[in-house]
């Protein structure tokens, strides 16, 4: 066991810190971490910031240099994420492209596909969204009904996706479609890459309980994409989609713990000022949240060690996802109790249609976290069946 940077890692950390110190200033620094990848506040400035990151090859850090990356190792990626979060830098808008789609593309894509898509993600010239869930394919994701058929050299897509974060901003969508009309469940699906700016696609915002509308419904009505834009073999889209979900449950949120440290520190300060920290039940609750926050960190370090040794996170990623989402939800509730009567009204109005404070936002948005990327119940099924080897339900 060893929790200290090697000299090379320490040097890399210093480089990241120096770069952030130099560039994260002015309007970029003012953005702050916001509220997750779907928070649209200051969109244009965030795009500009992200392009700056890309230009210095901090986007696609671990990718090969031919795609604009730095060929960094996993430890360096983690160090970058740590420093980035610690610096209160803006949440990345290219999360879906860089964090979810690109690793899947690197695993399953042809050289031509990688050449076509990776550099544009790296330079933040193309943003992506994720077309998985449908009205009748939520937890039962394999029940996908969006169809795609080949018409000459093009796929023609018809159907509806939902909960599509940032679809209204995205240039491309990775969309799982049923390409074998006679197939059922996870058979006969294909993972297609589809341009968003075309007449066959309509994006309608879905307003959430937080008042914002990062989620969308996406209607495909004869939308078209080139035949070569299938990622992985036709008919085997389920396997590709599962890889994306693995990234979403595993590595993509590894630096969340650091962001939560910041949220906790903020709440603790409030609790100390308003006396909540002296109230025995709340004091114990705050200590419980701290315990969970540290255990999350230790779990993350064990998971990372496994990742470096084995090369993949595996189904244990579900433990991480279940842990952090549950913790964050509990944290949101603790925050409301700590605020007490102050939770009833908004302290810092920001001119939104439905005004809430950051802690309100966490309290509400955390209800989505235990649902997206596989609801907690689905994570428990995965843990039960794939980690513990318990029998599946008869189907």
């Amino acid at each position, binding site marked *: 066991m060893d929790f200290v940077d090697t000299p090379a890692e320490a040097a890399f950390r210093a480089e990241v810190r120096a770069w952030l110190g130099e560039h994260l200033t002015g309007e970029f620094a003012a953005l702050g971490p916001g509220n997750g990848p779907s928070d649209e506040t200051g969109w244009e400035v965030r795009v500009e910031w992200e392009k700056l990151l890309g230009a210095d090859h901090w986007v696609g850090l671990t990718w090969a240099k031919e795609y604009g990356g730095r060929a960094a190792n996993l430890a360096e990626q983690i160090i970058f994420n740590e420093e980035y979060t610690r610096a209160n830098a803006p949440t990345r808008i290219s999360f879906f492209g860089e964090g979810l789609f690109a690793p899947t593309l690197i695993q399953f894509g042809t050289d031509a596909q990688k050449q076509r898509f990776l550099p544009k993600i790296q330079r933040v010239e193309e943003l992506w969204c994720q077309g998985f869930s449908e009205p009748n394919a939520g937890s039962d994701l394999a029940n996908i009904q969006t169809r795609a058929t080949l018409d000459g050299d093009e796929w023609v897509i018809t159907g509806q996706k939902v909960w599509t974060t940032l679809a209204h901003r995205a240039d491309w969508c990775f969309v799982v479609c049923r390409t074998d009309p006679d197939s059922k469940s996870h058979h006969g699906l294909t993972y297609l890459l589809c341009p968003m700016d075309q007449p066959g696609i309509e994006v309608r915002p879905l307003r959430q309980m937080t008042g914002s509308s990062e989620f969308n419904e996406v209607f495909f009505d004869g939308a078209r994409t080139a035949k070569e834009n299938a990622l992985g073999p036709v008919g085997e889209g389920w396997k590709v989609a599962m890889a994306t979900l693995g990234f979403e449950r595993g590595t993509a949120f590894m630096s969340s713990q650091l962001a939560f440290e910041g949220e906790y520190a903020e709440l603790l300060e409030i609790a100390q000022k308003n006396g909540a920290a002296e109230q025995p039940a709340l004091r114990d609750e705050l200590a419980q949240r701290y315990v969970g926050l540290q255990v999350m960190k230790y779990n993350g370090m064990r998971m*990372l060690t496994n990742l470096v040794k084995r090369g993949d996170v595996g189904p244990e990623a579900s433990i991480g996802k279940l842990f952090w989402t549950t913790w964050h939800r509990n944290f949101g509730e603790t925050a409301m109790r700590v605020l007490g009567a102050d939770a009833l009204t908004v302290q810092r109005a920001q001119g939104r249609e439905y005004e809430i404070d950051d802690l309100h936002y966490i309290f509400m948005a955390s209800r989505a976290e235990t649902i997206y990327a596989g609801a907690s119940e689905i994570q428990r*099924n995965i843990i*039960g069946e794939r980690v513990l080897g318990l029998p599946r339900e008869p189907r």
Partner: protein
Amino acid sequence: MNFAFSEEQEELRRTVRQFLEAKSPETEVRRLMETTEGYDPSVWKQMGQELGLQGLAIPEEFGGQGYTFIELGIVLEEMGRVLLCAPYFASAVLAGNAILNAGTDAQKSALLPGIASGDTIAALAFTEPSGKWDAAGITLEAAESGGRYTLSGEKMFVIDGHVADLIVVVARTAGTTGADGISFFTVRGDAEGLTRTSLSTMDMTRKQAKLEFNNVAAEPLGTPGSGWPAFSKTLDQAAVALSNEMMGGAQKVLEMSVEYAKVRVQFGRPIGSFQAIKHKCADMLLEVESGKSAAYYASWAAAEDNDELPVVAALSKAYCSEAYFHATAENIQIHGGIGFTWEHPAHLYFKRAKSSEIYLGDPTYHRELLAQRIGI
């Protein structure tokens, strides 16, 4: 960053597991828990002489193996897994660390080699009938006369105090309160004026004694009156050690639950195929793995003896206690009626879990310690 055991450490685990599976099967646990002594002297001897377990984390200069708290944690985890009935926690962890923390080099040289070899069984007597786990709980005063000390008073919940050859006593100098005046002494188990009474324990696999001191002559260990830092550190180390031990038991009951859920058929299918049972097992795994993360990290902090130890000791004791008890309780529920019988081992773990949760202070107590230590 590397949060994993080394190959050598994994090898230690395999060796200890093999030994304990042979020497401490459930039949032996049940036989020993019915005895007053509560351990098998021949197995104890083998642990010391063949495997060197009692001296594992004692420095070589004092007759030990010179390994760290990480190795000690591995051994404890394996002992917790089989509910080993032996005075290991009392002697190698509580008393051994107290002597290392409080004693002078000469005292360490005199006392530790016997503990390391297993020839001496030592116990740490600190808690009193008040059941307090902190400095305020220490009220037994040491009377001094011409540089000689005598102890009078009562110690309770002394793990393996009834079989110990050497008792390390935490007392206080006359007229002091709180952290001031905390002092360590050593007393022989058969000292004149010492009455030892075996207690009937809820967890029969771990024995406790009441010790009554009536003008018992005692040797100071370290400097009388300035023992608080050493005592505080001993308690933190004990919390870390117990956290690791608990996770061994927690892993075992998880395995029992999963195995049973795969083979027990009701409504025509294995009960583990029902989400009600599957999700219980999933939650148990999450808590057991998280508890291990905390316990292992705490072992590392204890091995490094760094500033993080007081915080991680409190948080790992709080988390692991709840994870262990929850796992043992769910294990009974998943087993249904059979899990409630005397014949089934589920109750042995359930009782060990609740005792371990309370011993050294319950999760609420440790969260309050944590709150103070991180400045909530």
